[in-house]
């Protein structure tokens, strides 16, 4: 995974957190959406970034929204997508 990709995803999440009045810091395994920290509209913003910047196909029947709940899970998703 390229460093700039990691940074882009991290920055996107940080911006969303700040936009929702939360501190920008988060750890890699921290639940972002399931914990109620971020709402579904925030998930939408993140999904659109993953679609437009990384070509993630959200209409894939195997895709589950839980796959973007943590930074680590997003990284796994991007790796799987890059290998496919």
């Amino acid at each position, binding site marked *: 995974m390229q460093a700039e990709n990691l940074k882009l995803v991290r920055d996107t999440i940080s911006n969303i957190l700040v936009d929702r009045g939360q501190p920008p810091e988060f750890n890699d395994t921290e639940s972002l959406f399931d914990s109620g920290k971020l709402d579904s509209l925030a998930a*939408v913003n993140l999904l659109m970034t993953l679609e437009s910047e990384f070509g993630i196909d959200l209409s894939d029947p195997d895709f589950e929204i839980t796959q973007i709940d943590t930074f680590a899970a997003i990284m796994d998703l991007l790796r799987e997508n890059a290998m496919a």
Partner: protein
Amino acid sequence: MTAVDLQTRPESPARWFNPLALRQSWLSMDKNDRVVEWAQSKLGIAVLHGAFLLALATLPVIRAKHMALIAMTLVLAALLPGRRGMVLAGMGILFFLLRPFRSEFHYTNFGEIWPEIGVLGAMNAQAGLMACSLVFFGLVLLLIENHRRKAVSVLAERPILSLLIAGTALTALTVLVPRDHGLFTVAWILVAYLSSSFFFIGYILMAVRQKGRMDNTTLLGYVRPFWANTVVPIKGPGYLAKFEAKDAAALAVTRLKGLKLAVWAVILFWTGEIVFNQVVHSTLGLPHFEAHLKAVAVGGPASVALGWAVVAIYFLERVLVFGAVIHALVAVVRMAGFAIPRGMVKPLGSRTISEYWGKYLFYFKELLSDFFFFPTFQRCFKKHPRLRIAFATFMAAFVGNILFDVICDAPVFAIDGFAATIDNFYSYTVYAGGLTVGIIWSQLFQGKVRPEDGFLRYQVLPRVIVLGFFALLQIFDDSSGVIPLGDRFAFFASLFGVN
């Protein structure tokens, strides 16, 4: 005085008589190492469970039989810490075997229908219910295995849509086939089972594809988890697994959080009961919402001020009662070892409609997001971001919202008739429509306010708009059909002086 002085100074005995200090100690007890350590001891576990069950027993919103099941499950899980997962699954399965339906009316209907099923009808209705529950478990197992193996690909790829189509077809059968036909009996029983567990099964199937394989017995325990006293699931096994306490210390912290929330539920419920029922309604004589609405509809006094007072009090009452119910439910889940987020978090402080919607009934909002919003967002209008969000919101807040109620009431179509059942949903359709427009406006057009905009524009106005919107919208939030839509509109208009 230095920081060191503050840390080493012995705790003053006066602290124990200071209500604010006591409140602070209570709220932070799950972060206090000594309390957490004590909560892991046998005495601590016993005291925590005793206090928790005592608190829960003071809430009339939990029925006695369900309270007994909760108590039995939590005590067993505490006595058998190594078998906690098995206890929770087993009690969930037992709960479903004994009480599979959503409504008491459905048990009555089942009792009437069961003797018509032929040879099996000779069995008493309760035994018949358990036999049917076992058969239904078999069907759910087939769904789970199909979801793992993708044997029937359409069913594995679009499980919710497939279940919805199956449920619709079965409901249609119950309406079209004569009551004395064997097909009616089988179809109605299946509809009754499916309608009460539809979204629970949906979440189970979601969990099947998640990392960390769960065994089928555990999954079956979530067709009706032991805490579920409503048809809104607190998400599913995959979600709960993320919040499960992994060691004794984490379990103690989770239980302490559960106890705190249960006590908060008790405070909310009894505050509402005393302030609203005893003082506002009984002593001050303010009419109850439905009684006032009916009175206005038949030409009773329609004072604008009285109308607004009734709406405002009804709104606060509902927030308080729903808050108490959902907190009690989440508290039970926490006592079972899952440190899940609260189901309602300070909704009255919301500054936007979508924020309120997310904070008011978090798990219902999550259900609509999981089954309607995200699946639509993933597939439709990908090249038009605003339309994409608006349409996904429409599918969740309007279509999903109404479908949820229709699915829950599916067995009623055969009993009350199709037209009569549909009539009941007119008001809820207006409610869902208003909610949808409000959320879409909030998501796409509501300007963001900042502290520098001033006290009035930041602290007051947005909240007045949000609370006013939901207070007015609740006039239509009903699918019982007891009060016709026209009467609700008449009352709504009377609030603005239009009679």
